């Protein structure tokens, strides 16, 4: 296999909760103590994104999927670990050196109502990234480029002088996609790009993303909580739970034979059209807080197959016969 386009190694991200030094100091039992707390958003994630594929990252709120997206894009700096793009490490670059990568990597956000500047016309919104990355382009070349991307996302180029609020949610998301495509990126990180949209509009935007992938040879890192979308759109799927990848597989394999107990529960919880009654695997308890991570396997508190080893030892991703990578002691020991 060729080397991956983007590779994430041992990524960790903590968000400090405890504030400044003075706020950390508490008086307990007759002595001063320094107390530090952090949200452990990502705890050791390794992922490879291959050229031309759509790698979907799924999980429930708080599992760290958006943090992965933002860290890859350089919007957050990792607490530990490395991110490589096309073989070069990019997470520690100076601002100037990171510019070429910023052009190649673009992002689409969840809420098109918040991601478009309300005081800029569509023309200005689309012009800005082009001017920034191609300062030498002539006015007419920029105009042609804008025409081209607007047409490719199905927005009439004559609407350039309108403002974001004059468009519907689906149209705004198209404009946000056009903005990402304007600088001819190779790699697009899409963080829940369709969850704020209605069903009939979701289909339009998904089709658009697939068309763009085909015609421009794009690679996607697609963050979503909607498993039905993943099944349709994804080449491979990574399932995350509490900041760790618990299963990584080809989309087909994952949906046909989920191995990790969490993936199994997650898949069974999707309401299906052919069901007459809810019919899902019940998990006990709720997702623990990422401030105090459980010891051992992060899922052990809710897992029906838990044993002593799960409570002690963190499971590593192992590759099974079907090619699925799964981090579970029960699978490794053949109990599941």
């Amino acid at each position: 296999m060729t080397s991956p386009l983007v590779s994430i190694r041992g990524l960790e991200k903590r968000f400090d909760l405890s504030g400044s030094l003075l706020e950390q100091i508490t008086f307990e039992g007759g002595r001063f103590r320094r107390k530090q707390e952090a949200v452990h958003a990502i705890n050791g994630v390794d992922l490879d994104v291959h050229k031309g594929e759509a790698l979907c990252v799924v999980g429930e709120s708080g599992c760290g999927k958006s943090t992965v997206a933002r860290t890859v894009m350089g919007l957050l700096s990792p607490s530990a670990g490395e991110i490589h793009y096309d073989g070069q490490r990019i997470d520690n670059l100076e601002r100037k050196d990171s510019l070429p990568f910023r052009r190649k990597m673009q992002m689409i956000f969840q809420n098109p109502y918040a991601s478009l500047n309300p005081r800029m016309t569509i023309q200005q919104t689309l012009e800005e990234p082009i001017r920034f990355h191609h300062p030498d382009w002539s006015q007419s070349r920029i105009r042609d480029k804008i025409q081209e991307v607007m047409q490719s996302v199905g927005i009439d180029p004559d609407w350039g002088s309108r403002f974001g609020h004059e468009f519907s949610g689906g149209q705004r998301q198209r404009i946000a996609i056009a903005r990402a495509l304007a600088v001819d990126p190779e790699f697009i990180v899409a963080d829940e790009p369709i969850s704020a949209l209605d069903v009939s509009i979701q289909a339009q935007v998904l089709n658009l993303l697939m068309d763009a992938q085909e015609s421009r040879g794009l690679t996607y890192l697609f963050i979503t909580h909607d498993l039905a979308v993943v099944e349709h759109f994804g080449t491979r799927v990574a399932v995350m739970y509490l900041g760790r990848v618990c299963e990584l597989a080809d989309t087909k394999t994952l949906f046909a034979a989920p191995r990790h107990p969490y993936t199994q529960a997650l898949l069974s919880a999707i309401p299906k059209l052919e069901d007459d009654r809810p019919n899902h695997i019940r998990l006990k308890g709720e997702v623990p807080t990422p401030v105090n991570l459980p010891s051992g396997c992060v899922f052990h508190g809710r897992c029906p197959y838990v044993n002593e080893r799960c409570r002690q030892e963190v499971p590593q991703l192992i590759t099974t016969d079907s090619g699925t990578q799964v981090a579970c002691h029960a699978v490794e020991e053949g109990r599941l």
Partner: protein
Amino acid sequence: MALLEVKDLDVRFAVRGGDLTALRGISFSLDKGERLGLVGESGAGKSVAAFSILNLIAQPGYIAGGQILFEGKDLAAMSERELRRIRGNRIAMIFQDPMMTLNPVLTIGTQMVESILAHRSISKKEARAIALDRLQKVQIPSPEKRLDQYPHELSGGMRQRVIIAIALLLDPEIIIADEPTTALDVTIQAEIMDLLLNLCEQENVALMLITHDLGVVSQVTQRMLVMYSGRIIEQGPTREIINDAQHPYTQGLINALPQMGEPGERLFQIPGSMPSLKNVPTGCPFHPRCNFATEQCKQSMPEYVRSGNVSVACYEVANLIEQEKRMQEAES
């Protein structure tokens, strides 16, 4: 007689430059213990329909016509005082965001006792016992402890369970649930829906479930209405509509779901988007997005026709039924 019967309901919003019609000619009924789904995309009017039943639509909205008969009495014509006896007591409501519905500065127990005492003259102690019983019914772990906790101490799923417990406090006949699980994760959503369904069955409570998720509707409800631009365009048994939708919009909605397409292939898409209330198209409001639209669709709103147990407002469907009838007559 149906428990709740809505007849020809019109709801309008009085704004500068004339009224906007949010609901037009809405008619449906709900039997005792029945579970009814209201489906549609944002702007279809499903929440307005639910809110207008208890006259909860805020100014400048008002009920412009029609009747809402609950056990034969018209809720639309009732005084605020009379309505208050029904609201929360005989008809309870569950809203989308549990954090918005619970008062953040009162404990769960205080809020529950308060709503019981608003309708029943019993002692606080008795009210607390009822509250505890309902918390047990919604399977909250250590319910006694929860009574003295504040909403922020509970997780999202737990809060929605508390909301369901509050809805059940006074043994209502009907629960209206407006997107009760939209703010929750899939695994929590599955649990809450399961709970709501079981409770409604056990207590024989009728449920009106408003949602945009066709999967949820199919799992929970027996009958469903599909709304588009303030009208009901199709209604009937859930299974029949899901398996064999008649209206082009319902068909499009179902076919646009990713699970209906082959992985990696383009999805079926309905062009355009829902019209805003300010410029609803003439005739059938769906005609600008419809593949079957004819001149007739642009002129006038189609009447409801019956196809099996389903009633549909569409000229194309009416024509097909008409043709079929003629063919059968010709054969016999």
